[in-house]
């Protein structure tokens, strides 16, 4: 297995998911479902790393990817004035994908996984709602909050099939991507509810530094830890390691420069 094979496998997986959820009207008006490469990679990680993988694993992995598409669709709904046809159908796209993920797992008669994943969606919805609920908490708690939002469903899938050894890569990887996205928004002069919540928590929780500094630091630290995890891991194959390094633009010299800054 090499990096090219990993890339091809992810693309084939994406095609299978698209086939499972295809709906002409939704595609035209709500767009394709959100199937981010890093999430697909982490879902497939045990397989890509040579673990035993059968049809049930694959079908279940598809249903978890569909959950992410469902939740991502609802994240696209505007807080106010969502009455355009495109927004209306995006609401329904999310509901449709939710129904499909349940149907896929019901067909597999995997009731335990339905329970575990729905439990996770409860947690994720609660965490997403926290930015609208005037919640103020420490910076570390906010990091845990976004980590749950980003990675819980994949972790539950891995846990169900006893692939827990991959958890730390999933948690760290998806946190890094979220932090990068948040910082990209800042660069573009935009904000998010999450950033507003961080700013509101800053005074009350007496953050050691302004939230933006902490966010940058967290990203740098997580990248270093990811690099360490990758280099020390006996679990990951060479191809998977290299793919992860490329996926997150991890460079050894980056690690060194960040450490010097600190």
């Amino acid at each position, binding site marked *: 297995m090499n990096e090219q094979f990993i890339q091809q496998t992810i693309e084939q997986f994406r095609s299978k998911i698209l086939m499972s959820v295809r*709906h002409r*009207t*939704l595609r035209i008006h709500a767009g394709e479902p959100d199937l981010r490469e890093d999430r697909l990679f982490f879902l497939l990680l045990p397989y890509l790393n040579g673990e035993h993988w059968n049809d049930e694993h694959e079908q279940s992995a598809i249903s978890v990817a569909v959950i992410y598409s*469902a*939740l991502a669709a*609802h*994240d696209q*709904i*505007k*807080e*106010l*004035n*969502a*009455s355009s*046809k495109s927004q*209306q*159908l995006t*609401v*329904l796209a*999310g*509901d*449709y994908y*939710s*129904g*499909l993920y*349940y*149907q896929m*797992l*019901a*067909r597999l*008669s995997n*009731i*335990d996984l*339905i*329970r575990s994943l*729905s*439990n996770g*969606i*409860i947690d994720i*919805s*609660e965490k*997403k*709602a*926290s930015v*609208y*609920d005037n919640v103020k908490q420490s910076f570390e708690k906010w990091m845990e909050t976004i980590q749950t939002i980003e990675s819980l469903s994949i972790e539950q899938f891995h846990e169900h099939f006893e692939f827990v050894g991959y958890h730390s890569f999933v948690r760290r990887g998806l946190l890094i991507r979220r932090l990068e996205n948040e910082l990209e928004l800042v660069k573009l002069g935009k904000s998010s509810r999450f950033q507003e919540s961080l700013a509101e928590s800053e005074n009350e929780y007496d953050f050691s530094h302004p939230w933006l500094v902490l966010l940058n630091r967290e990203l740098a630290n997580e990248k270093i830890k990811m690099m360490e995890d990758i280099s020390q891991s006996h679990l990951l194959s060479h191809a998977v390691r290299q793919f992860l390094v490329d996926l997150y633009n991890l460079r050894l010299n980056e690690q060194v420069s960040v450490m010097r800054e600190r």
Partner: protein
Amino acid sequence: MEKMKLKMLYSDMRSDLDLIEKELEIAVNSSSDLLNEASLHLLHAGGKRIRPVFVLLAAKFGHYQIELIKHVAVPLELIHMASLVHDDVIDDSEMRRGQPTVKAQWNNRVAMYTGDFIFARALEYITNIQNPKAHQILSYTMVEICVGEIIQIEDKFKLDQRLQDYFRRIKRKTALLIASSCQLGAVVSGADEKTANHLKRFGYYVGMSFQIIDDILDITSTDKELGKPAGSDLIQGNITLPILFLKDSPEFRADLEYALTGNMTEDERLALVKRIRESDAIEKSKAISNRYLQKALKEIDALPASLAKKSLRDIALYMGKRKF
């Protein structure tokens, strides 16, 4: 008054329905204050709870155990609730059952997360049922409901639809979930397949009749009774059965087209609603609703005599005649 009548019809199941109500409150309990408040806000706004009622009554044709069947009755109401929260975003509705909607009280995004939360709770709850068939029935229903809603949006503002399009739409929008409520009640309580199928078809026909009545009431009720302007369906572009009966009438065509432009004044709306009420479209629609009702009653005729059978019949008749 209407709610009183309904309560009387439910009187034999009072204690079990009280239990379901308490379970619903527990089910929507969240560690998020916001989701807790939004879900309870919705729950306390009321509702007829017809889906749990049908689950319980259908379960009486098998081995009835409230501690088991509550795991079906509660999620079905939760799924209905979750769909209402999202529907209010789609329809941009400010009020429901006389209360501000979740999206009006908070915002659309909070409504999204509230719906997702309630929906996930419903699935978590129903996983107490280990019978895979129950999950296959419910998941199929949920997907079909969404497909129905997607078609409804596609068909919006299209006056030239066939009756068949309307019936397919309301089948998915309403009838399927009621049919599944009846079928699931029977399947999970271990009723035989023939009985479960009769109950499923009963639910389907009742659901069709119920939705047609709902569409009629949108025109014949007052703004106050509805908690929203009469004729809202038409204003929002939803073409219902009474409108389909009038769309080719030279007296109505131009006015209906004008109503769909969204430029109607309040006076014009009230005048058009009044004319539709006075037309024969209402009676024609009622006749079709009644035909579905008769089919529903015929389905339960085949079932053994029992108190549950009488209750199903009474509730179906009530729903076919309700005025609000």
